[in-house]
């Protein structure tokens, strides 16, 4: 059976840094303040023609670097390409952060001496390894909207539909359609090569 590979993509020509996605995410998963699974950034602000904004979270890389470096092997990649991890296994060493090109892994500070707690990152609203849609899962990983048949909340609530989610091919098609409608060449999207390596 062929599986789609679920991907995020943020269309820079549409992203306006409204932070809808990041707040939708924080609010949907009731994240602690300071943990930003998703973040919107603007580059070259105030420089005409060069300013663009983009929304970044875990890109669920095909060949996820985080998964490669984890000393306790707490990552797992679902058949549909969603990269998840087991917080009960995670030791909060931070290696995934060093490996990640997007700065997706987040570390809450808990415990003595400023130690890092278990890593937290975007789950593409697919929860974690605990029982689906259980209280425990929601507590540790947030909502499991994928299991409910719903779209990840960030992309669903994107104000300008800049943030796309779905299988890689469909996203490419949407993006291509937009670019050709705009009649301008595609910019090289941020991190595209890493997240979309086959």
């Amino acid at each position, binding site marked *: 059976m062929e599986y789609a590979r679920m991907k995020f993509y943020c269309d820079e020509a549409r992203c306006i840094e409204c932070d809808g996605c990041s707040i939708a995410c924080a609010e949907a998963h009731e994240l602690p303040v300071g943990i930003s699974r998703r973040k919107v950034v603007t580059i070259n602000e105030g420089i005409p023609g060069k300013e663009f904004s983009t929304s970044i979270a875990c890109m669920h890389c095909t060949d996820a670097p985080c998964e490669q470096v984890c000393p*306790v092997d707490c990552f797992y990649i679902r058949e549909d390409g969603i990269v998840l991890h087991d917080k009960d*296994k995670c*030791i909060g060493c931070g290696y995934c952060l060093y*490996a990640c*090109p997007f*700065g997706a892994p987040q570390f809450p500070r808990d415990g003595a001496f400023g130690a890092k707690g278990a890593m937290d990152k975007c789950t593409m609203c697919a929860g974690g390894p605990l029982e689906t849609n259980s209280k425990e899962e929601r507590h540790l990983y947030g909502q499991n909207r994928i299991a409910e048949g719903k779209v990840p909340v960030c992309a669903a609530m994107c104000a300008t539909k800049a943030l796309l989610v779905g299988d890689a091919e469909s996203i490419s098609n949407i993006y291509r359609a937009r670019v050709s409608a705009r009649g301008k060449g595609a910019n090289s999207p941020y991190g595209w090569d*890493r997240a979309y390596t086959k």
Partner: protein
Amino acid sequence: MRKFFYFFVATACLASVAFAADSQIWGEMRIPNILSYGQEQSLKLGALFTMLQNHYFGKIFLAILVLVPLVFFVHYKVIGPKVFSHEGKKVYAFDMFNRVVHQIAAISFIVIVPTGFVIVFGDFFGGGTFVRLCKNLHGIFTIPFAIVVIPMFVMWVKDMFLHWDDIKWLMIVGGYLSKVKNPVPAGKFNAGQKTWYWLATLGGVLMIVTGAMMYFLDFKIEMLNNITGLSQIDLLRVSAILHNVVGFAVVALFFVHIYMSIFAIKGAIHSILTGYKEEEEVKILHSSWYRKLKEQGKV
């Protein structure tokens, strides 16, 4: 003086937590910090770290863990330990201060090295509580070492500079490849010990700094950022790579140090417990020092 040092360490620890509140990694500065692999300003350290960690670090540590003891096992079986009389006269080698400092460092190492291995082979232990505990112990037991590393450096540094003897010592690998008890050219410390000293102190400091960077993530040392021109995330990546690479050497030499003190030279460990070395041992293994002591009439 020492009090002041304690104070300094405590302040540094607290300050790092305070810095962390004003986080560079998580704050506005995130994008300049988290550089994508291909981005121009990036040193591609992320990819380098990923490659090294994915393919090499674990294997090298495993090799050290297996091969170094194996070599010693063969050495022990084939050449055997050096045995010196414990009945003869003794030479006072280490004063109380030396011993206390050494012991604190020793205890730290005894915890840090195995817990380090647990982290490296975290998947073998299945992650979770045990490995997390080890990770935290790894960090916490760095504190005593951090306290003694400078006194240790200062108290022995005068004996640790390179000497002609050291070259000779290295040529004959300290005489350990022969069963014969020929005097080996060495001062109070032989070339092996000197190597270990420099690695444990300078390398130790490097391990402490890189470790602290990784432990706190936001351990902001702006001077470092300015000198190196690296963003915080690249500094962290450098830290992770250095911590592992220096770790190989530290672990390997730590094993050597233990083998020497416990197995290769029977009873050598007593010298750091009591402060006294066997005269015969000194005569053979630290012949230059012995000659000097004799000239001074201390034996």
